[in-house]
């Protein structure tokens, strides 16, 4: 079981909406192994983002057990969840979500600032990550608004990798990019996956399935089928 990065058991997530309850997820079982490249497909409202947020420790389930690297996170408090996120999980968002007041390099350094890495180590690592995501070091001092969408997403990926997480989570990583740039970003994610990072990508774009070795489809909060 040691290569199990994520383990979901009977996960249910219910939201209260007025006097009604919305079942975003119903009894979801899923396990993700080290080295997996999993795509989660589904229409909007199918619960795929909710699922990603639960795996990413941004949210807690109403029912069920979630284990990240064999730690049950269902009962952890805010600060403990933050610590798990900090050292185990990297996030990639559709809108890149870089901090506008920080330079590209500082954005990459940010997660390491929070994990108290020394300044020198931090900068060295950030520069090597910049190289790893194929971004010229001349962009290091650029602010996010001075970068193209593809460049911003590369910085965001480098940031996600900063604390060497075992798991990368991407929510529609190509959603705000043109086809060619989107393809380049997916190639980069596949490259990172081949180098050992477990990858979970949530998307409604079926072409992204080509990059994954596993794919699950969510319909109305339930996993309808899984194909590898």
């Amino acid at each position: 079981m040691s290569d199990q990065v994520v383990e979901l058991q009977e996960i249910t997530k219910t939201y209260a909406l007025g006097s009604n309850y919305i079942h975003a997820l119903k009894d979801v079982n899923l396990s993700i192994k080290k080295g997996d490249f999993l795509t989660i497909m589904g229409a909007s409202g199918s619960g795929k983002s909710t699922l990603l947020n639960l795996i990413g420790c941004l949210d807690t389930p109403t029912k069920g057990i979630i284990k990240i690297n064999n730690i049950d996170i269902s009962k952890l408090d805010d600060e403990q969840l933050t610590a798990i996120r900090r050292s185990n999980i990297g996030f990639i968002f559709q809108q890149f979500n870089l901090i506008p007041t920080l330079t590209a390099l500082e954005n990459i350094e940010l997660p390491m600032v929070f994990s108290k890495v020394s300044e020198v180590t931090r900068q060295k690592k950030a520069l090597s990550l910049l190289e790893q995501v194929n971004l010229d070091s001349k962009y290091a001092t650029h602010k996010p608004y001075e970068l193209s969408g593809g460049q911003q997403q590369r910085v965001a990926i480098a940031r996600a990798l900063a604390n060497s997480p075992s798991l990368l989570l991407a929510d529609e990583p190509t959603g705000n990019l043109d086809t060619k740039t989107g393809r380049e970003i997916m190639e980069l994610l596949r490259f990172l996956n081949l180098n050992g990072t477990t990858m979970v990508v949530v998307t409604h774009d079926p072409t992204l399935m080509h990059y994954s070795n596993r794919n699950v489809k969510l319909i109305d909060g339930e996993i309808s089928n899984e194909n590898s």
Partner: protein
Amino acid sequence: MVKYPMKIVKQPGNIYIQLAKRNLERRVVRTILAAVGIIIGVFAISSMGILGNCLKVSVSNSFEDYSNEIVVYPAGGETSITENQVKQLDKISEIESVLPIYSSGTKIEYKDKSMYGAVYGIENEDLTSLVEIDNGKMLKSSSTGCVIGQELANFLDIKVGGKVTLEDTKLKVTGILKKRGMSPDVSVDNSIFVNPEVYNKIFTDNNKEYDFVVVKAKNVDDVDGVENSVKKILNKKDDKVFLSSVKNMLSGVEDALRYVSLFLMGIGSISLVVASVSILNIMLMSVTERTKEIGIMKAVGASKKDIMKMFVLESLILGIIASFIGGILSLGIVFVITDLILKDVSSLFDRGVFLYIVGGIGFGIITSLTGGVYPALKASKMKPIDSLKYQ
């Protein structure tokens, strides 16, 4: 292996401070407006404090010459100080000199003008130790003339050599005295000074007893001791005399001035409280605007403490800069005012001035920090999932 140009890597200091600085710069108008509040508050507190302090120092300085004087008046039922009492005072060792004085008020006439003024009967050598001559000559011991105060001379147009009339007695003016202003012993400017023998001829109902006695201690530090000795000797059974020392009177004045400056500083601190609310306001706005940013930071691993630190630092930096500007400004303006009003800026180099500036700056920084704590706390408590969705 790629060689990185190391100079682009060099960052200007701590990333938290950088973040705070850049966020303040990003909302520059708001930052300046909030800073103005703090600047005014700190300025109000320090300058009021300093002005009060300068006033105190200047009052103390102007009474410095009299600080070893004690005036002995007849107490309650008594109407005068006797010759015998004066002799007893002479025996106290810490006393430098005893100046027994007759005094009363009367109408002073010169040509067709007249005014009411004080008349003092005092030995000529005692008078020399109290007043200075401006024009003409000081009274001699056998002189039957008089010396008069500056204002009296001006009001009645009296020149040296003129003859004033009081109580039907004509007196030749031998000299006009230097202006002395307010003083605790004899009031000089509107008065006439004559020898005791002359005084007793004019005021025949006077039973040759003194109206008050000015006692000069050898040393300022002896004043309390002298007071106690005088009370022990003269007030044995019941109170025959009461004492008024410049030193104790001055401490009363200083107390009053201290309350005045405290009151003014209190008003100043109200403006700082208002400034603190405005910091609270801009920081709350900033937290709301940066909700998504906070969510991102939490997603990539920022703890509550990290977020707190970020926002508190922002109000702290704002507070430090604004408070120092306020402190420096108040020193500058008080310097100008003191120069204009007191014509003497030496009172500014007092330790108290430094304390008021440091105190004002410290108070400014603390209130800015106070204004920043609640917004920072609010930011740190945000749920990452909710803040990430915030648009």
